[in-house]
């Protein structure tokens, strides 16, 4: 009898000890990624746990679209994650206005802030409060299948202006090559065109001016011109057949299988497009990236140097413990960012880490972003869920000739007024 009691006491002792050992749990929610990338985060979590007794870091992954629709509900519940993936923009503003986020500016380790570029931190700042940290930057570029362009006799190095691009598209069409691959069903691949053209037409401030309600807002000349230029392209029927029934994933595989010459997509698609192809994808020699063509006579000067892309990162929720912020800083320290660059997981945002990029394409993109006059975050994220989706809608409608550039601009303005 006595022995049983001692055993019980011992057992009880171990359980309480076990509970004490894992007191703090840090939950991190991220959009789903591939296994290699998950391993990268798992390694970081383990390294952090090894240094900090009693801390348990849990990564959870949800597929892209589901993540966006599930997050608002999660944030209002008790199951709210401590740290979650974010694209910045209006969504972050709305989350902060609702009080779901936490100002971490005073909680970061000393000197940490200085390791990140100010412009990237700006993307996670709302009214002077820092609600998260940037992780990496992406850029939307024009991917080129050089085998096809050479076959059609198009010299992509000569493409500088939008007119050059349009004539290259015409040449490709004449030679029987599908000029552009796009995932029209998901609409956002098409919104890259409209956004880039608006940026080129209206200069770096075009979006913030419209958001501020100055002048004609989203109905200003620059946005209407962007629609016109876009329709100059779409009237040539440059996309693959049935492009409105093609998803992003399918289009990505199609481009890698050599179905078309151009593909306007973020740098992040470099590895995924190979994974999605049936032929193994294009080799580095067959691939090239060029920046989006410029407009020779824009409405407002200054847009030629701007880039479109993302500054993706992490937001910190109101329920996060100080340990979570410590972990976030750890996750984004120079060593880990350098590792990500070496493993080609992403293009790190931390200063002085891009030299670790082995891959030529990533290095080029890093260079573009660094020398960019203004890095515009994707409009479908930047303007918030509702207005962003409207931008995607009108881009698809413009591509099919279903609306005029004026109607498209008016729809965006209407959505902005009633956001």
């Amino acid at each position, binding site marked *: 009898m006595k022995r049983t009691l001692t055993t019980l006491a011992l057992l009880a002792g171990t359980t309480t000890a076990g509970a004490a050992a894992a007191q703090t749990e840090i939950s991190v929610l991220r959009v789903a990624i591939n296994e290699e990338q998950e391993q990268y985060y798992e390694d970081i979590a383990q390294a952090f746990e090894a240094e900090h007794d009693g801390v348990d870091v849990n990564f959870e992954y949800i597929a892209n*679209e589901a993540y966006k*629709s599930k997050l*608002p509900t999660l944030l209002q519940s008790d199951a709210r994650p401590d740290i979650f993936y974010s694209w910045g923009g209006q969504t972050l503003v709305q989350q902060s206005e609702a009080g779901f986020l936490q100002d971490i500016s005073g909680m970061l380790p000393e000197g940490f802030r200085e390791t990140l570029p100010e412009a990237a931190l700006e993307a996670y700042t709302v009214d002077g409060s820092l609600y998260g940290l940037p992780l990496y930057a992406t850029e939307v570029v024009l991917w080129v299948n050089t085998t096809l362009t050479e076959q059609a006799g198009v010299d992509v190095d000569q493409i500088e202006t939008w007119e050059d691009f349009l004539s290259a598209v015409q040449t490709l069409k004449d030679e029987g090559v599908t000029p552009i691959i796009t995932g*029209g069903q998901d609409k956002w691949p098409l919104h890259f065109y409209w956004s880039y053209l608006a940026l080129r037409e209206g200069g770096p401030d075009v979006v913030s001016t419209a958001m501020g309600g100055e002048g004609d807002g989203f109905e200003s000349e620059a946005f209407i011109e962007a629609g016109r230029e876009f329709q100059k392209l779409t009237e040539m029927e440059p996309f693959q057949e049935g492009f409105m029934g093609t998803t992003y994933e399918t289009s990505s595989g199609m481009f890698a299988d050599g179905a078309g010459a151009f593909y306007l997509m973020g740098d992040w698609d470099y590895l995924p497009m190979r994974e999605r192809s049936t032929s193994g994808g294009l080799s580095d020699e067959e691939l090239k990236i060029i920046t989006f063509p410029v407009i020779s006579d824009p409405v407002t000067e200054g847009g030629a140097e701007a880039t479109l892309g993302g500054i993706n990162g992490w937001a910190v929720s109101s329920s996060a413990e100080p340990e979570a912020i410590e972990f976030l800083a750890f996750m984004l320290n120079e060593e880990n960012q350098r590792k990500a660059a070496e493993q080609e997981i992403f293009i790190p945002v931390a200063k002085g880490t891009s030299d670790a990029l082995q891959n030529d394409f990533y290095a080029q993109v890093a260079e573009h972003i660094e020398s960019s006059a203004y890095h515009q975050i994707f409009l479908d994220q930047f303007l918030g869920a509702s207005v962003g989706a409207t931008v995607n809608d009108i881009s698809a*409608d413009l591509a099919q000739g279903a609306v005029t550039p004026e109607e498209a601009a008016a729809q965006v303005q209407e959505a902005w007024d009633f956001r």
Partner: protein
Amino acid sequence: MAIAATTRRLSASERLRRSLGNGRVTAALILLPPALLIFTLFVMLPLGESVWYSFFNWNGYGAPTDFVGLENYQRIAGHSIFHKAVGNTLKIVAISILLQMPLALLLALLIYRKTPTNAVFRLIFFLPFILAEVAAGLIWSFVFDGNYGVTASIAQSFGAESFFILADRDWAFVAVMTVIVWKYFGFHMMIYIAALQSVPEDLIEAARIEGAKRRQIVRYVQIPHIKPAIIVSAFFAIIGALQVFDIIIPLTNGGPSNQTHTIVTYLYTFGLTRLNIGFGSAVGVILFFAAITVAIFYQRFFMGKDKA
């Protein structure tokens, strides 16, 4: 006159006393509260909340504060895509009643007798209905694919150019309706089969002896007999059309450019995924009133008469 009314009232209270005596009211008092509670909690309360939210411009974060009155309803009324969605829903009702139900009836008449071959056919025709909607939608999205789908191979084998029906603004909804007819005709067929089996065999026999032809038997004996079943199946078709959602999402996701929305996918796309919860709630309220109007009118004008 007054006396007559009093007697009627008296007899009513008399009836109440009697029913109390035989335990009917007691049974109702015991059995009703759980159902009522669940109905209130999960139907009436959310409905009331939706009505409340529909007066706000609310993105779902925090509590709704931006009161906009009827502006959400105004925006819906003026939204061309909502008009399209309502039109599409009506198209589904029409195709269900004009094509799906006659098809189901025809097949039911062919295979309602209990024979082994008929059982096999019944199973085959019923199979689409068993499949999950999302799976069916996905399967058909592959079938309709213009590059490697079945329709593409068929077109190519005839020497025609392959077509991308799901990417075509004018034809995509035809594809959606095809899938809906394919998916649900088996369900209506089963209702008819069950009803046809209950038509007395001697009645058909009698008609045959009187010299009625097959078509006449169907027209004058069987169809009048299964009328209640037809009315019920039409009711399911209409209410079902108001609910179509999970087939469309994997098939077209409402596209190309919002041409294939139904009221529910419209609610989901413009209310939930865009985080316009107030706007979405307003669509939900409209949908609720549409459904309840249909239900009440249908009960009154079709189902009431023969107590189906």
